[in-house]
């Protein structure tokens, strides 16, 4: 059997090239996407600031909720524990006395309270950042010993002084004695550089710049009420300190705090504020004081000082979802088409005495051989693809600059195995029917697949379409999963179209072919396409895929950007101008600015994130700290219920809907540093895009978000005030409201989407060319017959073009239908407006591009085939 398989593969090299190519690309995409995802999942922080500490005690870095459910089953009480965590964007602090207590433990040389807080440094009028735009993190000088940073020159910082790491100093050309301006949430300070320090063997840590101030000034500068971590330095000859440290913490845990490790003891019930949460056995928020050693120590660092891989995980997760779908979809179609092209040969084998079972095995074996061969170049190609995409994403800022692709052989093997599996399954399914072909079919002119399967087609299409409808109906598309879910629903609809295949294509070609069927060639093209819905479906489906998937993603992302820009404009409509500072403004500075004479209304916002615990699951959301002054409104959030918070908070319509909140309710929220607050919901607003889903008092956010800087102030003022505003704050920029742009991360997102679209566009384009080529090679006899009936080569070219036109039109129609359903529903979910086209230019470009590609793909292979075979092969029976 294997001999026969190798033999047929050798003989039909051309016909198999298509399947080979599809399998190769599929494996490449799967391994590329897999590598990227695996790389972000396993990405480790580049360096450990706590390298010199034996043990690090960390404050809260995540909200952890444990849900315990009791199931009574036949007298047995089954207890199920489910732990869900959500990372904090800030760092929780530790009790102030803890370090002193730990320092007394035997074997401990020192317990150093570590304060880590983001600062903005300006030197010589320019913002100072580390390598690749890394943030600068401030510490007390004591923290230097944890890495350790040692002075290269100068002295430790005293009052009004700072020590910079050597890398930062070199970037700005700063030497001891130079003046820098440091902005933190507590205000702006001018500091004098007293010395330059560096870790052993290098100028600085890779992803964070370091600024040290006097320990006595660290608290005031950071606004922290305690250390964010405690680094424990072991005395020489001390054993493992971990257990001792854990015991010390457990023994004297303050009320409401869990002891060391993950075991909860003094549990603070999370469900008090939310009625729906107080279930029997319910969810518990675990307050963590974590003791870390070894590679885990780095987790105690300030979250903002470590490269953030959360966003890339979802981006790459999505990327692999899309590419895997497209790859599997295309590969299945190609294998099926390839099998169908060879029905005649299969029938001949049947005449020669092959049983259906043997044919099935032959087909499986062939496909496995093919996919196996394809995997060999496919996997390295995947590495290249992953590196290329990673490089683009790094430039876009969608992944941290430190991100590198880890070449994980397991991922490559898994991708190859997936390619093999898909090919084998597709060949098996296609072969199941083909193998039943009657031997007599070999003797007739054409071999046709045994009919039937109509029911299966309709059934599977109905299931897929039903799934799409369910997703579109029940998933809140307006939320953060909207994009992903709209992709899922268009993928399901595509599956439905592919399952229907000829059934979906037939009525379309019936109409289209008559519209386009002018002239003798057009008429013939119409007759041929109407007569062969299977072939038309086989080549139209990749066109549908290309248009539907890419148009949906592109249009939806354009739509979101557009809506966000619209909401941004509406929000700031009442304001005369936006006041910003490149470094951000400390709240105190903002207050000074807002008090400038002539300002009639102002709204300052501090971007942050909050965590809401509901149903045993912590979830984080974008939010803003908001300070309103003046008598006239400068910010219009579009309240649908209630109004601006006055000590309480307001939530977006999406958030209020998600958690079923009503105005007047008291809600428990967690701030960036994990701090719990109970606030009354005072209003629900509409214009949340590009802004945030909750609005809280600015002072609260400034105190609990480590950055805590005002990003912008919407101001409304009388003419002539702009100058005074500029004079009020250092480096303040006043931009008329009309000239403001969309937020940076929105553009970043759009860039990521467009890159993903580029990847799938490339792949689906190749798939289209490939499918058309396979379909055309199967028509050699048909073309020969036509030539014999008197068709000139030119007529055959025109025939191929006409057929391609019909197929493209049918494919685009189906693609537009799917896109319309998904984009329309998505659009209504966003803001109640029904849009289908969204962006006429993008839509037209997509449609024209797909059409051009389809026409090219339809015409080119026919040309090659006809050139190679100037005259019909009259006796050739292949």
């Amino acid at each position, binding site marked *: 059997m294997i001999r026969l398989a190798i033999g047929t593969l050798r003989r039909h090299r051309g016909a198999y090239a298509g399947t080979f190519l599809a399998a190769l690309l599929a494996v490449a995409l799967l391994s590329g996407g897999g590598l990227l995802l695996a790389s972000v999942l396993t990405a480790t922080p580049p360096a450990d600031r706590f390298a010199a500490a034996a043990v690090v005690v960390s404050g809260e870095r995540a909200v952890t909720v444990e849900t315990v459910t009791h199931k009574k089953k036949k007298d047995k009480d089954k207890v199920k524990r489910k732990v869900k965590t959500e990372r904090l964007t800030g760092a929780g602090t530790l009790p102030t006395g803890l370090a002193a207590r730990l320092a007394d433990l035997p074997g401990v040389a020192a317990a150093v309270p570590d304060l880590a807080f983001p600062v903005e440094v300006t030197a010589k009028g320019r913002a100072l950042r580390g390598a690749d735009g890394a943030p600068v993190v401030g510490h007390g000088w004591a923290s230097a010993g944890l890495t350790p940073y040692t002075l290269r020159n100068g002295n430790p910082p005293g009052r009004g002084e700072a020590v910079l790491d050597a890398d930062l100093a070199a970037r700005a050309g700063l030497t001891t004695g130079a003046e820098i301006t440091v902005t933190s949430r507590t205000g702006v300070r001018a500091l004098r550089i007293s010395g330059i320090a560096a870790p052993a063997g290098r100028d600085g840590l890779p992803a964070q710049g370091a600024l040290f101030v006097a320990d006595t000034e660290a608290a005031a500068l950071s606004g922290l009420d305690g250390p964010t971590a405690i680094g424990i330095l072991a005395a020489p000859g001390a054993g493992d300190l971990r257990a001792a440290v854990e015991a010390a913490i457990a023994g004297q845990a303050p009320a409401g705090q869990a002891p060391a490790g993950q075991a909860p003891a003094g549990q603070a019930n999370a469900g008090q504020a939310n009625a729906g949460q107080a279930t029997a056995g319910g969810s518990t928020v675990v307050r963590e004081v974590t003791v870390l050693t070894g590679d885990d120590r780095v987790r105690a660092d300030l979250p903002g000082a470590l490269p953030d891989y959360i966003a890339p995980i979802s981006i790459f997760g999505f990327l692999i979802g899309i590419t895997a779908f497209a790859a599997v979809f295309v590969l299945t179609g190609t294998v099926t088409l390839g099998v169908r092209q060879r029905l005649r040969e299969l029938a001949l084998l049947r005449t020669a005495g092959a049983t259906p079972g043997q044919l099935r095995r032959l087909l499986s074996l062939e496909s496995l051989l093919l996919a196996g061969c394809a995997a060999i170049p496919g996997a390295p190609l995947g590495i290249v693809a992953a590196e290329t995409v990673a490089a683009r994403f790094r430039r876009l800022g969608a992944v941290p600059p430190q991100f590198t692709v880890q070449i994980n052989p397991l991922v490559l093997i898994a991708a190859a195995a997936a390619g093999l599996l898909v090919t084998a399954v597709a060949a098996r399914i296609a072969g199941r029917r083909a193998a039943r072909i009657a031997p007599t079919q070999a003797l*007739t*002119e*054409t071999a*046709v697949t045994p009919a039937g399967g109509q029911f299966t087609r309709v059934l599977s299409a109905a299931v897929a379409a039903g799934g799409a409808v369910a997703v579109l109906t029940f998933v809140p598309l307006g939320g953060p999963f909207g994009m992903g879910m709209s992709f899922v629903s268009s993928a399901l609809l595509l599956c439905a179209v592919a399952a229907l295949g000829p059934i979906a294509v037939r009525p379309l070609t019936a109409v289209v072919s008559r519209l386009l069927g002018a002239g*003798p*060639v057009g*008429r*013939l093209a119409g*007759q*041929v396409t*109407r*007569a*062969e819905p299977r072939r038309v479906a086989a080549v139209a489906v990749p066109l549908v895929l290309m248009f539907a998937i890419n148009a949906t993603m592109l249009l939806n992302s354009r739509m979101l950007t557009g809506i966000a820009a619209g909401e941004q404009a509406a929000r700031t409509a009442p304001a005369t101008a936006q006041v910003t500072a490149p470094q951000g403004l400390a709240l105190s500075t903002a207050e000074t600015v807002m008090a400038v004479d002539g300002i009639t209304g102002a709204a300052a916002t501090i971007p942050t994130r909050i965590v809401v615990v509901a149903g045993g699951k912590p979830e984080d959301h974008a939010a803003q700290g908001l300070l309103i002054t003046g008598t006239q409104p400068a910010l219009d959030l579009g309240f649908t219920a209630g109004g601006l918070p006055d000590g309480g908070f307001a939530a977006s319509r999406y958030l209020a809907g998600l958690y079923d909140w009503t105005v007047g309710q008291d809600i428990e929220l967690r701030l960036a540093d994990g701090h719990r607050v109970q606030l009354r919901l005072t209003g629900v607003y509409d214009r949340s895009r590009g802004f945030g889903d909750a609005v809280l008092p600015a002072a609260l956010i400034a105190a609990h978000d480590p950055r805590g800087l005002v990003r912008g102030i919407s101001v409304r003022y009388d003419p002539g005030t702009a100058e005074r505003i500029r004079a009020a704050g250092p480096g303040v920029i006043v931009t008329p409201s009309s000239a403001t742009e969309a937020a940076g991360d929105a553009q970043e997102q759009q860039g990521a989407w467009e890159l993903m679209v580029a990847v799938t566009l490339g792949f689906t384009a190749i798939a289209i060319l490939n499918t058309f080529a396979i379909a055309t090679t199967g028509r050699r*006899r*048909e073309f*020969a*017959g*036509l*030539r*014999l*009936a*008197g*068709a*000139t*080569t*030119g*007529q055959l070219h025109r025939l191929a073009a006409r057929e391609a036109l019909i197929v493209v039109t049918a494919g685009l129609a189906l693609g537009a239908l799917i896109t319309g359903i998904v984009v329309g529903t998505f659009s209504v979910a966003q803001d109640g407006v029904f849009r289908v086209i969204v962006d006429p230019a993008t839509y037209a470009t997509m449609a024209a591009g797909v059409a051009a590609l389809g026409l090219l793909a339809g015409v080119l292979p026919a040309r090659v085939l006809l050139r190679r075979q*100037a*005259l*019909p092969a*009259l*006796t050739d*029976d292949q």
Partner: protein
Amino acid sequence: MRNAVVEVLDVTKTYPGGGARALDGVSVAFAAGTFCAVMGPSGSGKSTLLHCAAGLDRPDTGRVVLAGEEIGTLREPRLTQVRRRRVGFVFQSYHLMDSLSVWHNVLLPQRLAGVRPDRGWAKDVIRRVGLAGREDDRPARLSGGQRQRVALARALAGRPEVIFADEPTGALDLATGREVLQLLREAVDGLGATIVMVTHDPAAAAWADRVVFLADGRVAGELAAPTADLVAARMTAVSAR
């Protein structure tokens, strides 16, 4: 010889890469309104001669005159245009379009030629070959003999100057083959068609007015008013050489 429809003059042909000449100085003419058979051992160049005479292939040297027009030197697409106006084909494998019905297959050459199909004549031809009522069927649903009749009807429907047939009965059983030969004969006698037919079967050749013998790419004699026995005897002689 009275007005020849096809004249082949001193034609040679060697296939690319293939040693001996497939045709080695063949001269033969086929007269209008006659039924001529071409016979010879396998590999003697019958199909090659037919392809050259019909303008499906171009000879290396020599001339081919089809209905007064020199086609040996014509290029595409002119060659196809001449061919589809003047020539009809019937082959062992029928070369029908599977996606078209019988009716559309019959009209296809005229459609491709851009001429208004003579529907009345086409109907008549389909009736004559015994396929009345099957016009809307697809070829896939017809028997081998029926398909060959469709091919014949298609060849006749365009009223070509000459019909070339390469082993038209090769894939058919004896009785069906006879019916097809009968139809060819009737086309010549009743409709005034000219037919050149390649065959291996002496009984089939006996339906013709004249038999031309080929051996090793050369004309090896001919026979007028053939009978099956005469042809068989002659074939044995030709093959033995």
